[in-house]
Protein backbone atom coordinates (compact mmCIF):
# COMPACT_ATOMS: atom_id res chain seq x y z
CA UNK A 1 0.00 0.00 0.00
CA UNK A 2 2.63 2.50 1.04
CA UNK A 3 4.70 1.78 -2.05
CA UNK A 4 2.22 3.24 -4.49
CA UNK A 5 1.42 6.32 -2.45
CA UNK A 6 3.05 9.53 -3.76
CA UNK A 7 6.01 10.74 -1.73
CA UNK A 8 5.02 12.70 1.33
CA UNK A 9 1.64 11.02 1.53
CA UNK A 10 2.92 7.62 2.51
CA UNK A 11 2.43 6.99 6.19
CA UNK A 12 5.58 5.64 7.71
CA UNK A 13 4.95 3.79 10.89
CA UNK A 14 8.03 4.53 12.92
CA UNK A 15 6.74 4.07 16.40
CA UNK A 16 3.42 3.67 18.13
CA UNK A 17 3.93 7.08 19.66
CA UNK A 18 4.68 9.01 16.47
CA UNK A 19 1.77 10.49 14.57
CA UNK A 20 1.98 12.14 11.15
CA UNK A 21 -0.04 15.29 10.70
CA UNK A 22 -0.75 17.20 7.52
CA UNK A 23 -0.96 20.91 8.23
CA UNK A 24 -2.35 22.60 5.17
CA UNK A 25 -2.65 23.40 2.35
CA UNK A 26 -6.08 24.64 3.36
CA UNK A 27 -5.19 25.20 6.98
CA UNK A 28 -5.25 28.90 7.92
CA UNK A 29 -2.06 28.38 9.92
CA UNK A 30 0.01 27.30 6.96
CA UNK A 31 -0.80 29.66 4.13
CA UNK A 32 -0.90 28.05 0.72
CA UNK A 33 1.44 25.25 1.56
CA UNK A 34 1.48 21.94 3.33
CA UNK A 35 3.69 21.14 6.25
CA UNK A 36 3.95 17.46 7.08
CA UNK A 37 4.91 17.14 10.72
CA UNK A 38 5.49 14.06 12.82
CA UNK A 39 4.62 14.55 16.44
CA UNK A 40 5.41 12.66 19.57
CA UNK A 41 2.73 13.79 21.97
CA UNK A 42 2.97 17.54 21.77
CA UNK A 43 6.47 17.74 20.32
CA UNK A 44 7.48 17.85 16.68
CA UNK A 45 10.09 15.24 15.79
CA UNK A 46 10.22 15.69 12.02
CA UNK A 47 8.98 18.27 9.56
CA UNK A 48 8.75 18.22 5.79
CA UNK A 49 7.54 21.43 4.13
CA UNK A 50 5.71 20.86 0.86
CA UNK A 51 5.34 24.12 -1.12
CA UNK A 52 4.10 24.33 -4.69
CA UNK A 53 0.35 24.69 -4.33
CA UNK A 54 0.44 28.18 -5.85
CA UNK A 55 3.18 27.59 -8.42
CA UNK A 56 2.30 29.70 -11.45
CA UNK A 57 5.28 29.30 -13.74
CA UNK A 58 6.34 32.96 -13.67
CA UNK A 59 9.80 32.08 -14.93
CA UNK A 60 8.45 30.16 -17.90
CA UNK A 61 6.00 32.95 -18.73
CA UNK A 62 8.84 35.47 -18.74
CA UNK A 63 10.52 33.63 -21.62
CA UNK A 64 7.60 34.40 -23.92
CA UNK A 65 7.28 38.14 -23.36
CA UNK A 66 9.63 41.00 -24.04
CA UNK A 67 11.38 43.05 -21.40
CA UNK A 68 8.54 45.56 -21.05
CA UNK A 69 5.55 43.21 -21.12
CA UNK A 70 7.16 41.08 -18.43
CA UNK A 71 6.67 43.86 -15.91
CA UNK A 72 3.01 43.38 -14.90
CA UNK A 73 3.16 39.64 -14.34
CA UNK A 74 6.53 39.39 -12.60
CA UNK A 75 5.23 41.42 -9.67
CA UNK A 76 2.46 38.89 -8.99
CA UNK A 77 4.35 36.60 -6.62
CA UNK A 78 4.11 39.21 -3.86
CA UNK A 79 1.52 41.79 -4.73
CA UNK A 80 1.92 43.55 -1.37
CA UNK A 81 5.56 44.12 -2.14
CA UNK A 82 5.17 44.55 -5.86
CA UNK A 83 7.73 47.33 -6.28
CA UNK A 84 10.47 45.38 -4.55
CA UNK A 85 9.72 42.18 -6.45
CA UNK A 86 10.12 43.99 -9.74
CA UNK A 87 13.16 45.95 -8.65
CA UNK A 88 15.92 43.42 -9.45
CA UNK A 89 14.30 42.47 -12.74
CA UNK A 90 14.11 46.12 -13.76
CA UNK A 91 17.74 46.76 -12.76
CA UNK A 92 18.81 43.73 -14.77
CA UNK A 93 16.73 44.68 -17.79
CA UNK A 94 18.28 48.15 -17.73
CA UNK A 95 21.75 46.66 -17.93
CA UNK A 96 20.75 44.35 -20.76
CA UNK A 97 18.96 47.06 -22.71
CA UNK A 98 21.62 49.65 -21.91
CA UNK A 99 19.31 52.28 -20.44
CA UNK A 100 20.37 55.15 -18.21
CA UNK A 101 17.93 56.03 -15.44
CA UNK A 102 17.23 59.69 -14.60
CA UNK A 103 18.26 60.81 -11.12
CA UNK A 104 14.76 61.75 -10.02
CA UNK A 105 13.43 58.33 -11.03
CA UNK A 106 15.96 56.69 -8.72
CA UNK A 107 14.62 58.64 -5.77
CA UNK A 108 11.03 57.90 -6.72
CA UNK A 109 11.97 54.23 -6.82
CA UNK A 110 13.53 54.38 -3.37
CA UNK A 111 10.42 56.04 -1.93
CA UNK A 112 8.07 53.54 -3.58
CA UNK A 113 10.26 50.65 -2.52
CA UNK A 114 10.26 51.76 1.12
CA UNK A 115 6.52 52.43 1.09
CA UNK A 116 6.00 48.95 -0.28
CA UNK A 117 8.27 47.43 2.34
CA UNK A 118 5.99 48.96 5.01
CA UNK A 119 2.82 47.84 3.22
CA UNK A 120 4.13 44.29 3.01
CA UNK A 121 5.36 44.21 6.58
CA UNK A 122 2.07 45.52 7.91
CA UNK A 123 0.22 42.74 6.14
CA UNK A 124 2.69 40.20 7.46
CA UNK A 125 2.32 41.63 10.96
CA UNK A 126 -1.47 41.46 10.76
CA UNK A 127 -1.29 37.77 9.89
CA UNK A 128 1.29 37.18 12.60
CA UNK A 129 -1.08 38.77 15.10
CA UNK A 130 -4.00 36.59 14.11
CA UNK A 131 -1.78 33.49 14.10
CA UNK A 132 -1.06 34.15 17.74
CA UNK A 133 -4.70 34.88 18.51
CA UNK A 134 -4.08 38.58 19.01
CA UNK A 135 -7.03 40.12 17.16
CA UNK A 136 -6.06 43.73 17.85
CA UNK A 137 -2.76 43.12 16.10
CA UNK A 138 -4.73 41.97 13.09
CA UNK A 139 -7.03 45.00 12.99
CA UNK A 140 -4.49 47.73 13.64
CA UNK A 141 -1.89 46.93 10.97
CA UNK A 142 -4.61 46.11 8.43
CA UNK A 143 -6.10 49.53 9.08
CA UNK A 144 -2.90 51.57 9.28
CA UNK A 145 -1.65 49.92 6.12
CA UNK A 146 -4.34 51.87 4.26
CA UNK A 147 -2.43 55.10 4.90
CA UNK A 148 0.42 53.96 2.72
CA UNK A 149 -1.77 52.13 0.22
CA UNK A 150 -3.54 55.45 -0.36
CA UNK A 151 -0.17 57.04 -1.00
CA UNK A 152 0.84 54.38 -3.51
CA UNK A 153 -2.57 54.70 -5.14
CA UNK A 154 -1.85 58.38 -5.69
CA UNK A 155 1.51 57.53 -7.21
CA UNK A 156 0.63 54.61 -9.46
CA UNK A 157 -3.13 54.48 -9.73
CA UNK A 158 -3.41 50.97 -8.33
CA UNK A 159 -3.78 49.98 -4.72
CA UNK A 160 -1.56 46.92 -4.59
CA UNK A 161 -0.43 45.77 -8.04
CA UNK A 162 1.38 48.92 -9.06
CA UNK A 163 3.54 47.77 -12.01
CA UNK A 164 5.17 51.12 -11.40
CA UNK A 165 8.81 50.28 -12.01
CA UNK A 166 9.75 49.87 -15.64
CA UNK A 167 13.14 49.51 -17.29
CA UNK A 168 14.36 53.09 -17.57
CA UNK A 169 12.66 54.59 -14.54
CA UNK A 170 9.12 54.63 -13.23
CA UNK A 171 5.87 54.77 -15.16
CA UNK A 172 4.51 58.11 -13.96
CA UNK A 173 5.85 61.14 -12.20
CA UNK A 174 4.71 61.84 -8.66
CA UNK A 175 1.41 63.74 -8.44
CA UNK A 176 1.41 67.41 -7.52
CA UNK A 177 1.85 68.12 -3.83
CA UNK A 178 2.96 64.52 -3.22
CA UNK A 179 5.90 65.50 -1.01
CA UNK A 180 3.70 67.19 1.58
CA UNK A 181 1.06 64.47 1.64
CA UNK A 182 3.69 61.75 1.84
CA UNK A 183 5.53 63.46 4.67
CA UNK A 184 2.33 63.89 6.65
CA UNK A 185 1.15 60.32 6.15
CA UNK A 186 4.56 58.81 6.89
CA UNK A 187 4.97 60.86 10.06
CA UNK A 188 1.56 59.78 11.28
CA UNK A 189 2.28 56.20 10.26
CA UNK A 190 5.49 56.18 12.26
CA UNK A 191 3.71 57.52 15.30
CA UNK A 192 1.08 54.79 14.92
CA UNK A 193 3.45 51.87 14.57
CA UNK A 194 5.43 53.01 17.60
CA UNK A 195 2.23 52.46 19.57
CA UNK A 196 2.36 48.78 18.63
CA UNK A 197 5.09 48.29 21.19
CA UNK A 198 2.65 48.75 24.06
CA UNK A 199 0.01 46.41 22.74
CA UNK A 200 2.16 43.78 21.05
CA UNK A 201 5.92 43.82 21.39
CA UNK A 202 6.04 44.58 25.12
CA UNK A 203 3.10 42.32 25.78
CA UNK A 204 4.19 39.65 28.31
CA UNK A 205 1.96 37.03 26.72
CA UNK A 206 3.56 37.52 23.31
CA UNK A 207 7.02 37.50 24.84
CA UNK A 208 6.37 34.29 26.76
CA UNK A 209 5.01 32.61 23.64
CA UNK A 210 7.75 33.62 21.25
CA UNK A 211 10.90 34.04 23.28
CA UNK A 212 13.30 31.08 23.05
CA UNK A 213 11.15 29.29 20.51
CA UNK A 214 12.64 28.28 17.20
CA UNK A 215 16.11 29.55 17.99
CA UNK A 216 18.30 29.92 14.90
CA UNK A 217 21.94 30.32 15.82
CA UNK A 218 24.26 32.63 13.91
CA UNK A 219 26.24 29.72 12.45
CA UNK A 220 23.13 27.94 11.26
CA UNK A 221 21.65 31.12 9.82
CA UNK A 222 24.73 31.49 7.64
CA UNK A 223 24.79 27.79 6.81
CA UNK A 224 21.15 27.69 5.71
CA UNK A 225 21.69 30.86 3.70
CA UNK A 226 18.64 32.61 5.16
CA UNK A 227 18.20 36.27 4.43
CA UNK A 228 16.55 39.49 5.48
CA UNK A 229 14.97 39.86 8.89
CA UNK A 230 15.61 36.20 9.74
CA UNK A 231 19.31 36.66 9.19
CA UNK A 232 19.50 39.95 11.06
CA UNK A 233 17.56 38.50 13.99
CA UNK A 234 20.32 35.91 14.32
CA UNK A 235 23.03 38.51 14.72
CA UNK A 236 24.38 38.84 11.19
CA UNK A 237 24.67 42.45 10.13
CA UNK A 238 23.75 42.19 6.49
CA UNK A 239 21.44 44.48 4.60
CA UNK A 240 21.91 44.95 0.87
CA UNK A 241 20.80 48.57 1.09
CA UNK A 242 23.95 49.21 3.14
CA UNK A 243 26.33 46.47 2.02
CA UNK A 244 25.71 46.60 -1.72
CA UNK A 245 23.71 49.76 -2.36
CA UNK A 246 21.75 50.07 -5.59
CA UNK A 247 20.20 53.16 -7.17
CA UNK A 248 20.60 55.99 -4.62
CA UNK A 249 20.71 54.02 -1.39
CA UNK A 250 24.39 54.89 -0.99
CA UNK A 251 23.46 58.57 -0.63
CA UNK A 252 21.09 57.86 2.25
CA UNK A 253 21.93 57.25 5.87
CA UNK A 254 20.54 53.82 6.77
CA UNK A 255 20.75 52.05 10.08
CA UNK A 256 20.68 48.24 10.07
CA UNK A 257 18.68 46.62 12.85
CA UNK A 258 20.36 43.54 14.29
CA UNK A 259 19.33 41.34 17.18
CA UNK A 260 21.33 38.44 18.56
CA UNK A 261 18.66 36.19 20.05
CA UNK A 262 17.59 34.42 16.87
CA UNK A 263 14.26 33.36 18.35
CA UNK A 264 10.73 33.99 17.07
CA UNK A 265 10.49 37.17 19.10
CA UNK A 266 13.59 38.68 17.51
CA UNK A 267 12.42 37.63 14.06
CA UNK A 268 9.07 39.31 14.62
CA UNK A 269 10.59 42.47 16.03
CA UNK A 270 13.16 43.16 13.29
CA UNK A 271 10.59 43.85 10.52
CA UNK A 272 8.86 46.30 12.83
CA UNK A 273 12.12 48.13 13.52
CA UNK A 274 12.78 48.10 9.78
CA UNK A 275 9.49 49.89 9.17
CA UNK A 276 10.57 52.72 11.47
CA UNK A 277 13.86 52.84 9.59
CA UNK A 278 11.93 52.93 6.30
CA UNK A 279 10.11 56.05 7.51
CA UNK A 280 13.52 57.68 8.08
CA UNK A 281 14.66 56.68 4.61
CA UNK A 282 11.52 58.09 3.00
CA UNK A 283 12.00 61.42 4.77
CA UNK A 284 15.64 61.60 3.66
CA UNK A 285 14.76 60.68 0.09
CA UNK A 286 11.99 63.28 -0.07
CA UNK A 287 14.48 65.90 1.05
CA UNK A 288 17.28 64.94 -1.34
CA UNK A 289 15.12 64.22 -4.38
CA UNK A 290 15.55 66.58 -7.34
CA UNK A 291 12.41 68.68 -7.42
CA UNK A 292 11.91 68.37 -11.15
CA UNK A 293 13.17 66.41 -14.09
CA UNK A 294 12.35 63.36 -16.09
CA UNK A 295 11.36 60.12 -14.38
CA UNK A 296 11.90 57.70 -17.23
CA UNK A 297 14.16 57.21 -20.18
CA UNK A 298 12.70 57.14 -23.66
CA UNK A 299 11.94 53.58 -24.58
CA UNK A 300 10.63 51.84 -27.65
CA UNK A 301 7.74 49.39 -27.21
CA UNK A 302 9.97 46.51 -28.16
CA UNK A 303 13.45 47.62 -27.18
CA UNK A 304 16.61 46.14 -28.63
CA UNK A 305 19.11 44.41 -26.39
CA UNK A 306 22.82 45.08 -26.49
CA UNK A 307 23.54 41.47 -27.39
CA UNK A 308 23.95 38.26 -25.42
CA UNK A 309 24.58 38.85 -21.73
CA UNK A 310 23.91 37.47 -18.29
CA UNK A 311 22.96 39.67 -15.36
CA UNK A 312 22.39 38.93 -11.70
CA UNK A 313 20.90 41.81 -9.70
CA UNK A 314 19.63 41.77 -6.16
CA UNK A 315 17.78 44.14 -3.87
CA UNK A 316 16.66 44.09 -0.26
CA UNK A 317 12.94 43.40 -0.32
CA UNK A 318 10.54 43.27 2.60
CA UNK A 319 11.62 39.71 3.28
CA UNK A 320 15.29 39.86 2.41
CA UNK A 321 17.66 39.70 -0.50
CA UNK A 322 15.76 39.19 -3.73
CA UNK A 323 17.82 38.33 -6.78
CA UNK A 324 17.02 38.14 -10.44
CA UNK A 325 19.19 36.24 -12.89
CA UNK A 326 18.51 37.12 -16.51
CA UNK A 327 20.09 35.35 -19.46
CA UNK A 328 19.75 37.20 -22.73
CA UNK A 329 20.58 35.77 -26.13
CA UNK A 330 20.10 39.08 -27.92
CA UNK A 331 16.45 38.49 -28.78
CA UNK A 332 13.71 40.87 -27.57
CA UNK A 333 12.56 38.26 -25.05
CA UNK A 334 14.78 37.09 -22.21
CA UNK A 335 16.18 33.59 -22.70
CA UNK A 336 15.77 32.75 -19.05
CA UNK A 337 14.60 34.68 -16.00
CA UNK A 338 15.28 33.16 -12.61
CA UNK A 339 13.98 34.81 -9.48
CA UNK A 340 15.95 33.94 -6.37
CA UNK A 341 13.35 34.76 -3.77
CA UNK A 342 13.90 35.22 -0.04
CA UNK A 343 10.89 33.13 1.00
CA UNK A 344 12.33 30.13 -0.81
CA UNK A 345 15.65 30.60 0.96
CA UNK A 346 14.12 31.10 4.40
CA UNK A 347 12.00 27.97 3.97
CA UNK A 348 15.10 25.82 4.37
CA UNK A 349 15.31 26.89 8.01
CA UNK A 350 11.77 25.73 8.82
CA UNK A 351 12.29 21.94 9.15
CA UNK A 352 15.39 22.55 11.23
CA UNK A 353 13.72 25.06 13.55
CA UNK A 354 10.58 23.07 14.19
CA UNK A 355 12.24 19.91 15.44
CA UNK A 356 11.83 19.76 19.19
CA UNK A 357 9.23 22.53 19.28
CA UNK A 358 5.72 22.13 20.59
CA UNK A 359 3.07 21.84 17.91
CA UNK A 360 1.36 24.92 19.33
CA UNK A 361 4.45 26.98 18.56
CA UNK A 362 4.43 26.00 14.91
CA UNK A 363 2.44 28.98 13.60
CA UNK A 364 4.59 31.50 15.39
CA UNK A 365 7.87 29.93 14.27
CA UNK A 366 6.62 29.43 10.73
CA UNK A 367 5.30 32.95 10.21
CA UNK A 368 8.25 34.58 11.95
CA UNK A 369 10.38 33.31 9.05
CA UNK A 370 8.82 36.12 7.02
CA UNK A 371 7.62 33.56 4.55
CA UNK A 372 5.23 34.29 1.72
CA UNK A 373 4.05 31.02 0.10
CA UNK A 374 3.18 32.53 -3.27
CA UNK A 375 6.61 34.05 -3.59
CA UNK A 376 8.38 30.83 -2.76
CA UNK A 377 6.42 28.98 -5.45
CA UNK A 378 6.60 31.72 -8.09
Amino acid sequence: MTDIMPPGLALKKVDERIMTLNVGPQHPGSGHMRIVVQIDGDYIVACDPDPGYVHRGEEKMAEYRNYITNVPHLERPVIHDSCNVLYPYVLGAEEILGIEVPERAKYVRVICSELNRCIYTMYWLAIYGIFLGHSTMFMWPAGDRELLIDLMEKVSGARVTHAHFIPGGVRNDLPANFEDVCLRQVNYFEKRIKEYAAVFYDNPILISRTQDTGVLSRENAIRYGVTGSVLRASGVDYDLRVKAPYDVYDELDIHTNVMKEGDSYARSRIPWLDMIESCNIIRQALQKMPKSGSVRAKLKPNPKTKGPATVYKRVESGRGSLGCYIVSDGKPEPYRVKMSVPSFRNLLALPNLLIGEKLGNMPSVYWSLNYWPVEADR
Partner: protein
Amino acid sequence: MSSDSEKPAEVKSEEKPTPPKPAPKPAAKAEEKPVELPAFEKGISDKLIEKFGDKVDIDFVKEDRVGIRTSKENVHDVAQFIRDDLHYDHAESVSGVDFPADNEIEVVYHLGSYTESSLAKQVLTLTTRAPRESNPIPGQDSTKLPSLRDVFYSVEFGEREVFEMLGVYFDGHPDNRRLLLPEDWADLPPLRKDFAIKGR
Protein backbone atom coordinates in the same frame (compact mmCIF):
# COMPACT_ATOMS: atom_id res chain seq x y z
CA MET B 1 27.49 43.01 17.82
CA SER B 2 28.62 40.49 15.31
CA SER B 3 32.16 40.34 14.07
CA ASP B 4 31.33 41.06 10.46
CA SER B 5 29.83 44.42 11.24
CA GLU B 6 33.14 46.11 11.98
CA LYS B 7 34.25 47.46 8.67
CA PRO B 8 32.44 48.15 5.45
CA ALA B 9 33.94 46.66 2.36
CA GLU B 10 37.20 48.25 1.33
CA VAL B 11 36.64 47.29 -2.28
CA LYS B 12 34.74 50.35 -3.23
CA SER B 13 37.45 52.66 -4.50
CA GLU B 14 39.10 52.25 -7.86
CA GLU B 15 36.58 50.08 -9.67
CA LYS B 16 35.37 51.15 -13.02
CA PRO B 17 32.20 49.53 -14.29
CA THR B 18 33.19 47.53 -17.27
CA PRO B 19 30.69 47.20 -20.07
CA PRO B 20 28.73 43.96 -19.82
CA LYS B 21 30.67 41.26 -21.46
CA PRO B 22 29.02 39.76 -24.51
CA ALA B 23 28.77 36.04 -25.22
CA PRO B 24 27.53 33.78 -22.46
CA LYS B 25 29.85 31.16 -23.91
CA PRO B 26 33.29 32.24 -22.86
CA ALA B 27 36.53 30.80 -23.86
CA ALA B 28 38.89 33.69 -23.30
CA LYS B 29 40.85 33.98 -20.10
CA ALA B 30 40.48 37.16 -18.12
CA GLU B 31 43.99 38.32 -19.00
CA GLU B 32 43.28 38.50 -22.70
CA LYS B 33 40.55 41.07 -22.44
CA PRO B 34 41.53 44.59 -23.38
CA VAL B 35 39.24 46.37 -20.90
CA GLU B 36 40.57 47.30 -17.49
CA LEU B 37 39.23 44.86 -14.92
CA PRO B 38 38.22 45.79 -11.39
CA ALA B 39 41.18 44.95 -9.16
CA PHE B 40 39.46 43.17 -6.28
CA GLU B 41 37.38 40.93 -8.50
CA LYS B 42 40.44 40.22 -10.63
CA GLY B 43 42.19 39.04 -7.47
CA ILE B 44 39.48 36.47 -6.83
CA SER B 45 39.62 35.10 -10.34
CA ASP B 46 43.42 35.00 -10.25
CA LYS B 47 43.34 32.87 -7.10
CA LEU B 48 41.07 30.41 -8.86
CA ILE B 49 43.27 30.30 -11.95
CA GLU B 50 46.35 29.84 -9.80
CA LYS B 51 44.80 26.89 -8.00
CA PHE B 52 43.03 25.11 -10.83
CA GLY B 53 44.81 26.29 -13.97
CA ASP B 54 42.89 25.38 -17.08
CA LYS B 55 40.27 23.41 -15.18
CA VAL B 56 38.30 26.60 -14.66
CA ASP B 57 37.37 29.22 -17.22
CA ILE B 58 36.79 32.78 -16.20
CA ASP B 59 33.41 33.69 -17.59
CA PHE B 60 33.42 37.39 -16.75
CA VAL B 61 34.99 39.76 -14.26
CA LYS B 62 32.99 42.90 -13.70
CA GLU B 63 32.06 45.16 -10.84
CA ASP B 64 30.99 43.03 -7.84
CA ARG B 65 30.60 39.94 -10.01
CA VAL B 66 32.95 37.13 -10.88
CA GLY B 67 31.77 34.33 -13.11
CA ILE B 68 33.60 31.05 -13.45
CA ARG B 69 32.82 27.95 -15.40
CA THR B 70 34.04 24.45 -14.82
CA SER B 71 33.33 20.91 -15.90
CA LYS B 72 31.13 18.62 -13.89
CA GLU B 73 34.10 16.51 -12.80
CA ASN B 74 35.76 19.48 -11.12
CA VAL B 75 32.78 21.39 -9.79
CA HIS B 76 32.87 19.80 -6.37
CA ASP B 77 36.57 20.55 -5.81
CA VAL B 78 36.15 24.11 -7.06
CA ALA B 79 33.19 24.65 -4.75
CA GLN B 80 35.19 23.31 -1.82
CA PHE B 81 38.00 25.73 -2.60
CA ILE B 82 35.56 28.62 -2.93
CA ARG B 83 34.12 27.86 0.49
CA ASP B 84 37.32 27.12 2.39
CA ASP B 85 39.84 29.50 0.83
CA LEU B 86 37.76 32.27 -0.72
CA HIS B 87 35.27 32.34 2.20
CA TYR B 88 32.03 32.37 0.30
CA ASP B 89 29.62 30.74 2.73
CA HIS B 90 26.17 30.40 1.22
CA ALA B 91 24.36 29.94 -2.07
CA GLU B 92 21.79 32.54 -3.01
CA SER B 93 20.23 30.61 -5.80
CA VAL B 94 20.59 27.59 -8.01
CA SER B 95 19.36 28.20 -11.53
CA GLY B 96 19.08 25.87 -14.45
CA VAL B 97 19.26 27.06 -18.03
CA ASP B 98 18.45 24.79 -20.94
CA PHE B 99 20.62 25.01 -24.07
CA PRO B 100 19.15 22.62 -26.63
CA ALA B 101 21.47 23.97 -29.34
CA ASP B 102 24.54 22.83 -27.37
CA ASN B 103 22.72 19.71 -26.15
CA GLU B 104 23.57 20.72 -22.60
CA ILE B 105 21.82 22.01 -19.50
CA GLU B 106 23.59 24.65 -17.51
CA VAL B 107 23.37 24.88 -13.73
CA VAL B 108 24.37 28.20 -12.20
CA TYR B 109 25.14 28.69 -8.52
CA HIS B 110 25.17 32.26 -7.22
CA LEU B 111 27.36 32.30 -4.13
CA GLY B 112 27.70 35.05 -1.56
CA SER B 113 29.32 35.65 1.78
CA TYR B 114 27.91 36.86 5.08
CA THR B 115 31.00 36.36 7.20
CA GLU B 116 33.71 38.04 5.11
CA SER B 117 32.92 41.75 5.08
CA SER B 118 35.05 42.51 2.01
CA LEU B 119 32.92 40.05 0.03
CA ALA B 120 29.57 41.51 1.09
CA LYS B 121 29.03 43.13 -2.30
CA GLN B 122 30.35 40.23 -4.30
CA VAL B 123 28.46 37.46 -6.00
CA LEU B 124 30.43 34.57 -7.43
CA THR B 125 28.73 32.74 -10.25
CA LEU B 126 29.74 29.11 -10.50
CA THR B 127 28.56 27.53 -13.71
CA THR B 128 28.68 23.95 -14.84
CA ARG B 129 26.98 21.96 -17.54
CA ALA B 130 25.33 18.57 -17.71
CA PRO B 131 24.63 16.57 -20.87
CA ARG B 132 21.08 16.86 -22.15
CA GLU B 133 18.87 14.03 -23.35
CA SER B 134 16.20 14.65 -25.94
CA ASN B 135 13.92 12.08 -24.29
CA PRO B 136 14.59 12.66 -20.63
CA ILE B 137 13.86 10.18 -17.88
CA PRO B 138 14.66 12.42 -14.93
CA GLY B 139 16.95 10.71 -12.48
CA GLN B 140 17.72 7.74 -14.72
CA ASP B 141 19.44 9.24 -17.74
CA SER B 142 22.86 10.82 -18.20
CA THR B 143 21.74 14.29 -17.12
CA LYS B 144 23.54 14.17 -13.81
CA LEU B 145 25.77 16.45 -11.78
CA PRO B 146 27.48 16.03 -8.41
CA SER B 147 25.50 17.69 -5.65
CA LEU B 148 27.08 20.61 -3.82
CA ARG B 149 24.80 20.14 -0.85
CA ASP B 150 27.62 18.81 1.35
CA VAL B 151 29.67 21.94 0.57
CA PHE B 152 26.90 24.54 0.65
CA TYR B 153 23.98 23.34 2.74
CA SER B 154 21.87 26.19 1.37
CA VAL B 155 21.61 24.65 -2.11
CA GLU B 156 19.31 21.90 -0.82
CA PHE B 157 15.98 23.23 -2.03
CA GLY B 158 17.55 24.92 -5.04
CA GLU B 159 18.90 21.65 -6.37
CA ARG B 160 15.58 19.94 -5.75
CA GLU B 161 13.93 22.65 -7.82
CA VAL B 162 16.42 22.30 -10.69
CA PHE B 163 15.86 18.54 -10.67
CA GLU B 164 12.12 18.81 -11.12
CA MET B 165 12.16 21.81 -13.46
CA LEU B 166 14.96 20.70 -15.79
CA GLY B 167 15.56 17.06 -14.97
CA VAL B 168 19.14 17.42 -13.75
CA TYR B 169 19.74 14.72 -11.15
CA PHE B 170 22.17 15.65 -8.38
CA ASP B 171 24.29 12.72 -7.29
CA GLY B 172 24.76 12.70 -3.55
CA HIS B 173 21.79 14.90 -2.73
CA PRO B 174 20.07 13.34 0.28
CA ASP B 175 16.54 14.18 -0.77
CA ASN B 176 15.85 14.17 -4.50
CA ARG B 177 12.07 14.40 -4.36
CA ARG B 178 9.87 16.88 -6.15
CA LEU B 179 9.40 20.20 -4.42
CA LEU B 180 7.03 22.48 -6.31
CA LEU B 181 5.55 20.29 -9.02
CA PRO B 182 2.70 17.88 -8.26
CA GLU B 183 3.72 14.32 -7.46
CA ASP B 184 1.94 12.96 -10.52
CA TRP B 185 3.61 15.27 -13.06
CA ALA B 186 4.39 13.04 -16.03
CA ASP B 187 5.26 15.57 -18.73
CA LEU B 188 8.68 16.94 -19.67
CA PRO B 189 10.48 18.97 -17.02
CA PRO B 190 8.68 22.30 -17.56
CA LEU B 191 11.58 24.73 -17.78
CA ARG B 192 13.19 22.89 -20.68
CA LYS B 193 12.89 24.78 -23.92
CA ASP B 194 11.03 21.94 -25.65
CA PHE B 195 8.21 22.17 -23.11
CA ALA B 196 5.98 24.68 -24.87
CA ILE B 197 3.18 26.68 -23.32
CA LYS B 198 -0.11 25.94 -25.04
CA GLY B 199 -1.00 28.47 -27.69
CA ARG B 200 2.49 29.97 -27.92
